């Protein structure tokens, strides 16, 4: 069976909720960052799938995906920098430790 739009949407939705689940349950900041990347990738997959099956003549969805990848890279750099600093000060990257920063 030829894979169609619905298969792709199913995969992206699954990816999204896996990401959300990971973000909410994991305590390790690196894992949480990875979960966010999963969510971003599910969105990218949606863009590409709709672009291919609904408006095949256009390139908007593809360009959006490229933007998202670029921004995700930048975001990952910032997030990792924050995590490294947290580790330096607290010797841990547990998200509960970051709760001490409130106030």
């Amino acid at each position, binding site marked *: 069976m030829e894979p169609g739009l619905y298969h792709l949407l199913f995969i992206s939705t699954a990816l999204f909720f896996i990401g959300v689940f990971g973000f909410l349950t994991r305590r390790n900041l690196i894992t949480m960052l990875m979960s966010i990347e999963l969510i971003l990738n599910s969105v990218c997959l949606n863009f590409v799938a709709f672009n291919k099956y609904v408006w095949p003549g256009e390139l908007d969805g593809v360009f959006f995906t490229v933007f998202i990848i670029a921004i995700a890279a930048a975001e990952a750099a910032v997030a990792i920098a924050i995590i490294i600093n947290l580790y330096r000060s607290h010797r841990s990257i547990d*998200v509960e430790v970051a709760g001490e*920063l*409130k106030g």
Partner: protein
Amino acid sequence: MNAMPATIYIILIPLLPLLGFLIFGLFGKKYFKTSSGLVSIILISLSFLLALYTAYTYFFILGRTDGVYQAIKPIQLTWLSFTQALSIDMGILLDPISVMMLLVVTGVSLMVHIFSLSYMKGEERFPIYYAFLGLFTFSMLGLVLSSNIFQIYMFWELVGVSSFLLIGYYYDRPSAVAAAKKAFIVTRFADLGFLIGILVLSYHAQTLDFQTLIQRLATPGTVQFSSAVGSGFLGISALTWGLSLVFMGGAGKSAMMPLHIWLPDAMEGPTPVSALIHAATMVVAGVFLVARLFPVYSISAPIVLRMIAFIGVFTSLFAAIIACTQTDIKRVLAYSTMSQIGFMMFALGVSGYSGEDGLGYAASQFHLFTHALFKALLFLGAGVVIHYVHSNEMKDMGGLRKQLPVTHITFLIACLAISGIPPFAGFFSKEEILMAAHEHEPLVYWLAILTSGLTAFYMFRLYFGIFWSKPFRNEHAHGHEGTFPLLAPLVILSIGAVGAGFIPFGHFVSADGRILEMPLHVGFSVLPVSVGVAGILIAFWLYQTKNDRPDRIASAWKGLYRSAYHKFYFDELYMAVTKGILFPLVGKPAAWFDRNIVDGAVNASASLTQGVSDRIKGMQSGRVQPYAVYFLIGVLLLSFFLLYIWIR
């Protein structure tokens, strides 16, 4: 009305005392601990010189056109403009009465400043005292120069505040604090009437400016006049109501019955303050106000003027009777002030507007002028006496003529002046007032004759009680009479009290601005003068030497004496009304409403907020993942909502 930029310096007259107030109020304690008195005197003497120059320029050069004194407005600024037609302005209005008041206020203020230099020496809050004096002088000058009725109201309240501050100057004495509050509350209550009166008058006249207002409301036939007369309340026209309410404000400041209760208590302030505020300047503000709006009173509401005449003469007689029984010398002087202001008020009340009829008006202003001089002199003299014996009570005095020769002579001059003995100043002005009363209201005239006899009696009771009566014995008294600053104002003012009567006052101040010859008939003067002399002789017989005649008379007329000694129970009456009616019927319900309804609503909203925040403050945990859950729930709800709308 011609604008003249050359007279702009007039604004300096009130501003110089204000400058003194600002400097001593801000820096007095640090930098002017002892020099504030001298600096103040310099500022106020500059004001006085400028006022003299203004008076000269106005009366002899600029003021008169075709034999009539015109009102001049050197400065007129629009301050708050609400619409094209309605704005509150700040301006200066020069006319005969305001120029005369300029001289009186700056002159008496200068004397009081000099006197205080010695009298208040060594006081802890010496610079603050001079700052308050400066504030008062500024406000009073602003009041007399005001060009519109709203401006006069602002300065009117400022005068009230500075009077409050100065009465309460000895704030560690409970009686002074109570007196200050009493003065403020009573005059403030009267000012409520004044404010309503201003609103009524300016609503109908559609202006706040004095000249326009007078011109519109004193000319029968204008649209504004018919609107003010046409509309009414309780069968009395709006114009009459407005003018009566404005007079209520004036009666409060000028201590007319029944709003007089604050004035005797105001004597708790330092004596020079009593001389300045509660004798010569502020208390005549009511007279000034009625004189300012006199054309409207006279032409449009003669009934109000009649009421003023009777209130004036009754206050005058009433205060004179009380003054005969008081033993605190400042209180005797306070009641005599009330009595003399009553004279000025009823003189306005019996006056007509133009020509010979306007005698009462001119006489009233003349009496205001001479009274300021001799009453300030009396108070300052009393200040020297109090300074010397350290007591206000007459029983601690007596036989002081040897110890205080200068005070003795000047006090005697002032007593003769207030009793209306020729050729002292009071004789001339009182004579004109009596003549005006004689022509218009015989009843007022006879009451006034009785009052002037009583005046002579109680003033000489005071004089003999202080300076004769018994040989002086007092271990607290110190060696000499006083220093130069204490005595110089007495001498200067006594020259005024002797000579001021010879000024042809009607040439300068009259109701319609024309020259008024003030007649003096010898035949007419016989009765008032002989009544005055009789009063003096009775006082001589009773008080010149210590004897038991006063006590015998007092016990013979026990009822009258007791009630006069207790000021005819006015204070008790006020207390009964406030404690018996006002507090339980108005105060208590209002307090209950405030405590339960108003405070209850505020407290309820506060506890509601607290309760809600107690419940939800656990959400603010500072942990990322619960936040993400809330975010997720929010997004999901929002998406379901949008989907629902979209599908529907």
